[in-house]
C-alpha cells in the first residue's frame, strides 16, 4: 500500500484542472474558425421552425474536399461580445431542434453529417426547462441514431454532458488531443458530489476528463495530435490533420453502405461504456 501525501494529491488535482483549463484556452480554434479552415461554400441555415434560432448551435451545408456535407456545430464565441451572443456554447432546446431539423434535411439530400462539439454543457435555465431541454436532447439522440447517412463527430475542445452527446452519437468520433469529454463539467460534478463547485480540481482529477479516457473506453475512435503547447499555437497544422482524418473516415463510411453502417452504429452504442480501462 502506498501512502499519497496531501501535497502530491494537491499537485495531481492542480495538474488535472490545468488540463481542463488548457481545453478551455481562449485561443483554441472555435467552431467558426474550424469551419473556415476546413470547408468551402459554408452556408449557414438558421432557426428551429418552432420557437427561435440559437446562436450557440450552427448548421448548414458546406463542401469538404469537393463533397457536400451538413455541418452542425456548437460555437462558444471568441471574444467578450461573441461569447455573450453564443451563450458560451451552451445551446438551448431550440439549438437541438435546429440540429434535428438539419439532420433530417441532410438525410433527405444525402449529405453526411459532420458535427463539431464544443460545449461545457447544455444551457441550464428557466426558459430552457420550460421549452423541454431534456426532450430536445433525447429526440436529437434518437434522430442521430437513426440517420441513414454517415455521421462523424469531432470534439474540438470541451464536450460536457448530454448537451455534447447529442452531437456525438456518431459512426466515428474524433477528438483533438487536448480536448476534454466528460459526463459533466468538473464544477458541476463537484457541486453534485460534494455540494461545493469550488472543489472542481478534485473533481477534475477523479473524472479523468481527457479524451484519452473516452478513447480507451471506445467512445472516441481517433485523437488528432496537437503539437505542444496546443492547437492554438499550430492551428493550420492541426486543421490539416483533422481534414485528412475526416476525409479518410468519410471514404470508409461511404464504402460501408447505409444498412451495415446503421447497424454498426447501433451495436456500438448497445455496449457503450462497458470496456474497462487498464
Amino acid at each position, binding site marked *: 500500500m502506498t501512502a499519497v501525501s496531501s501535497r502530491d494529491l494537491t499537485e495531481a488535482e492542480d495538474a488535472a484542472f490545468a488540463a481542463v483549463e488548457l481545453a478551455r484556452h481562449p485561443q483554441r480554434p472555435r467552431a467558426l474558425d474550424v469551419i473556415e479552415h476546413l470547408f468551402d461554400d459554408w452556408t449557414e441555415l438558421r432557426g428551429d421552425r418552432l420557437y427561435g434560432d440559437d446562436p450557440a448551435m450552427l448548421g448548414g451545408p458546406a463542401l469538404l474536399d469537393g463533397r457536400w456535407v451538413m455541418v452542425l456545430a456548437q460555437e462558444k464565441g471568441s471574444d467578450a461580445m461573441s461569447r455573450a451572443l453564443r451563450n458560451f456554447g451552451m445551446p438551448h432546446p431550440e439549438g437541438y431542434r435546429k440540429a434535428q431539423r438539419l439532420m433530417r434535411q441532410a438525410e433527405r439530400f444525402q449529405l453526411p453529417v459532420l458535427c463539431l462539439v464544443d460545449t461545457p454543457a447544455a444551457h441550464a435555465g*428557466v426558459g430552457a*426547462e420550460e421549452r423541454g*431541454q431534456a426532450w430536445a*436532447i*433525447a429526440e436529437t439522440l434518437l434522430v442521430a441514431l437513426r440517420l441513414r447517412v454517415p455521421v462523424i463527430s469531432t470534439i474540438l475542445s470541451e464536450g460536457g454532458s448530454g448537451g455534447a452527446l447529442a452531437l456525438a452519437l456518431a459512426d466515428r468520433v474524433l477528438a483533438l488531443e487536448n480536448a476534454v469529454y466528460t459526463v459533466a463539467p468538473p464544477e458541476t460534478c463537484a*457541486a453534485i458530489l460534494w455540494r461545493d463547485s469550488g472543489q472542481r480540481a478534485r473533481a477534475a482529477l477523479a473524472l479523468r476528463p481527457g479524451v484519452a479516457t473516452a478513447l480507451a473506453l471506445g467512445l472516441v475512435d481517433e485523437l488528432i495530435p496537437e503539437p505542444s503547447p496546443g492547437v492554438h499555437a499550430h492551428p493550420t497544422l492541426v486543421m490539416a490533420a483533422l481534414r485528412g482524418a475526416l476525409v479518410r473516415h468519410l471514404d470508409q463510411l461511404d464504402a460501408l453502405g447505409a444498412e451495415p453502417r446503421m447497424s454498426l452504429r447501433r451495436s456500438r452504442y448497445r455496449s457503450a461504456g462497458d470496456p*474497462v480501462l487498464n
Partner: protein
Amino acid sequence: MVRAATGTADRARPYPLIRPILRPGLGSCEGCGARHLQERFERALQVCPACGHHGRVPAPVRIEQLADPGTVAPIAAMVPERDPLRFDDGMAYPDRLRAAREATGQSEAMLTARASLGGTTVVIASMEFDFLGGSLGSAAGALFAAGCDLAVAERRALVAVCTSGGARMQEGIAALAQLARCTAAVAAVADAGLPYLAVLADPCFGGVTASFAAQADVILAEPGARIGFAGGRVIEQAARDQLPDGFQKAEFLLSHGMIDAVVSRTELRPILTTLLRAYGGRCARVPA
C-alpha cells in the same frame, strides 16, 4: 489509501428481486408532516391520506403496485460491476456500491421484471432512487437495454418507472454513454412497433430525462413530481433566474406540453391498462 490498479476486474453477480420488509410502527408524511401508521401508508401506495403527497416508492414495491397480484417474475440478469475510472469521491466507488446494495437490498438502480398489468404481460423497468440517487451507470443502462431486448424478443410492451438524479458521476464518460445505449434500446422497441409507456416519479432529472424518460410514446407523471434537465438549485445558482411558481413540477411540465398527463398513483394502473389495450394490438403480431 491507493487501491491496486488491477482492482477493475469485472465481477458479475446474480440479480435477485428482494421483497422489501414492511416497516412497522409510525412514520410521517414528507409533505405535511402528518403522522401515520406505516402499514396503512403502504397499503395506500405511499400516498398521504391527509395531503395527497406521493411518497417515494422502492423499485420492487413499485412493480408490485403496478402488476396484477402474483404475476411479477424478475428478469434474471447479471449485473456487471464496473469501476472504469477507479473513482474515489471520499469513498471508493466499489465500496459505495456495496453500501448502496446493503441499504436498499437492490443490486442496482434499475430493476426489471416481467409482469401482467391489467391482463397484458409487459416488461417493467423500475428505478430505485435510494440506490445512489437513482443514478444511471453502465449496469443500470445494461439492465434497461436487456429489458428492451426482452420486450422485442417476446413482443411485449415496455413500461418504465423513471426516478433519477441523472448520470452517475462516479462512472464519468461511461455513464454519459448510457444515454446513447438506452436510446438505441428504445429505438429497437419502437422499430418493432411495440408501445413504450413511461411513468415519471419524483425526482427525475439529467441524463435519464434527457434519454429514455423523454423518449416514451406516452409520458405520465405523478402529481408534484419534480422533472427536468438541470436541477432547480443549479439553475438558481448559474443563471440567478427567479424560479416561477411550481417550476419543474409535473403540472408545470403538463402545461408546457412536455408530458401527456399528471396521474395520481391510485389511477396509474387503470390508465396504463387502458393504454396497453389501445396500443398493444401489434404486440402479438409480427409487423409486416
